[in-house]
């Protein structure tokens, strides 16, 4: 996180805000709600309070303007610069300006008003842009479903360094941005996808192309805005050029790079009993056409050709996969299966049914 140069801050904790005008693209109630939610992002983690006023000059004046609007920082039409805000201070200090030529929405279409205003309010309170790509105060727009939004730890640390901690008995914490070479890195799910490797972690994908040294970190929503964060299992059916992604009792199918229509569907269609609430990991053996699903300490085997579960399952993972008791994530590559459990990774030879190597979970990233 970075403080605005000169460390400006409000001398009071009880601030006021006023919505000067509205975008014609959203219902007023939705704009009000987006702004209230954005303000609570910051008031939930500090002693700050925000009171809405209807007339008079407020500390934070929020308005939708276009192009040159007499503050020496003209907007540039659709896309590009979406909004800006001013550091704490009198008059224009703390004010938020939103480009009224943007396509403002309350969901994943266009630009989500809540996400953008929450970012701008960070400036109104004295924060500058963060270099943490997962931070709310990162300069570029990245959609997150407002229902799933949690203020990242980097932003919490920054705003509390200015205004102090929240008065709540339990201090709120937020998600951190995964670092590829963090020795304590664990994964929610791993899969191949047309020769690349996708490591799922929270709202992120760590993407590894075999020919490139760097590991790319992106939001899941950048590729698939309709997918939730926290994907729990994933596997590639290479023959069908499909990737299946699982979360709780639902799964999605990616065909190529697009989510196939009609998804998510229920995992019970695949033959799981109702006692199964989620899938921890999965991999598909492209030689046998069998897919292995790992749930807690058991696993099922699914026949991709018959499109049904094989009989005689579930079985204990321990009975067929060596000392691997539970699995967080799994994928197959070059005939070997790689199982991830916590920070440990096992390379398993499915023909010899034995573990041939044990590595760190992030061994695929050139750390």
């Amino acid at each position, binding site marked *: 996180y970075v403080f*605005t*140069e*000169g460390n400006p801050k409000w001398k009071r904790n009880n601030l006021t805000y006023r919505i000067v005008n509205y975008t014609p693209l959203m219902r007023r109630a939705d704009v009000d709600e987006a702004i209230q939610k954005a303000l609570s992002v910051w008031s939930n983690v500090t002693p700050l309070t925000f009171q809405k006023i209807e007339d008079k000059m407020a500390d934070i004046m929020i308005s939708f303007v276009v192009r040159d609007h007499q503050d020496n*920082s003209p*907007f540039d039409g659709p*896309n*590009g*610069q*979406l*909004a*800006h*805000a001013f*550091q704490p201070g009198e008059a224009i200090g703390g004010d938020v*300006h939103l*480009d009224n030529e943007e396509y403002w929405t309350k969901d994943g279409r266009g*630009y989500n008003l809540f996400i*953008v205003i929450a*970012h*701008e309010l960070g*400036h109104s309170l004295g924060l*500058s*842009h963060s*270099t943490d*790509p997962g931070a709310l105060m990162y*300069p*570029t*727009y990245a959609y997150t479903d407002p229902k799933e939004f949690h203020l990242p730890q980097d932003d919490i640390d920054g705003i509390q360094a200015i205004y102090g901690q929240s008065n709540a008995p339990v201090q709120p914490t937020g998600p951190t941005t995964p670092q590829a070479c963090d020795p304590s890195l664990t994964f929610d799910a791993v899969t191949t996808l047309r020769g690349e490797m996708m490591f799922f972690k929270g709202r992120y994908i760590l993407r590894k192309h075999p020919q490139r040294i760097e590991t790319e970190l992106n939001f899941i929503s950048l590729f698939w805005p309709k997918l939730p964060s926290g994907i729990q299992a994933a596997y590639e059916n290479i023959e069908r050029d499909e990737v299946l992604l699982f979360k709780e009792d639902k799964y999605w199918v990616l065909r190529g790079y697009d989510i196939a229509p009609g998804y998510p569907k229920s995992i019970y269609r695949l033959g799981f009993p109702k006692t199964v609430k989620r899938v921890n990991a999965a991999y598909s053996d492209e030689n046998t056409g069998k897919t292995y699903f790992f749930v807690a300490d058991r696993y099922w085997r699914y026949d991709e050709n018959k499109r049904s579960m094989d009989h005689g399952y579930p079985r204990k993972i321990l009975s067929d996969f060596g000392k691997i008791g539970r699995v967080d994530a799994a994928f197959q590559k070059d005939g070997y299966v790689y199982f991830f459990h916590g920070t440990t990774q096992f390379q398993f030879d499915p023909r010899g049914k034995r573990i041939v190597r044990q590595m760190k979970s992030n061994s695929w990233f050139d750390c």
Partner: protein
Amino acid sequence: SAFPVAPEAEEERKNIALVETYLQNFYNLQKDDQPHVRLKSVNPLPEKLKEMQEFFGLKVTGKPDLETLEMMKKPRCGVPDIGK
């Protein structure tokens, strides 16, 4: 003009304009009011570009490579990344 501009040249011209505007807006690159006067001083643009690449965790090349141009085209906040 009467002479058609090669697409590559047009593309390059657009990229240079994008880079300059971006660095002026967000990295305090001073506008060059007298482009026709060749100053002896060092061109600040590569250094500013390095600053931007470092901020975004890109490869620091000082050159407008593809990854840098893609980042510059992303929708973003209008507040500068450095300075006031």
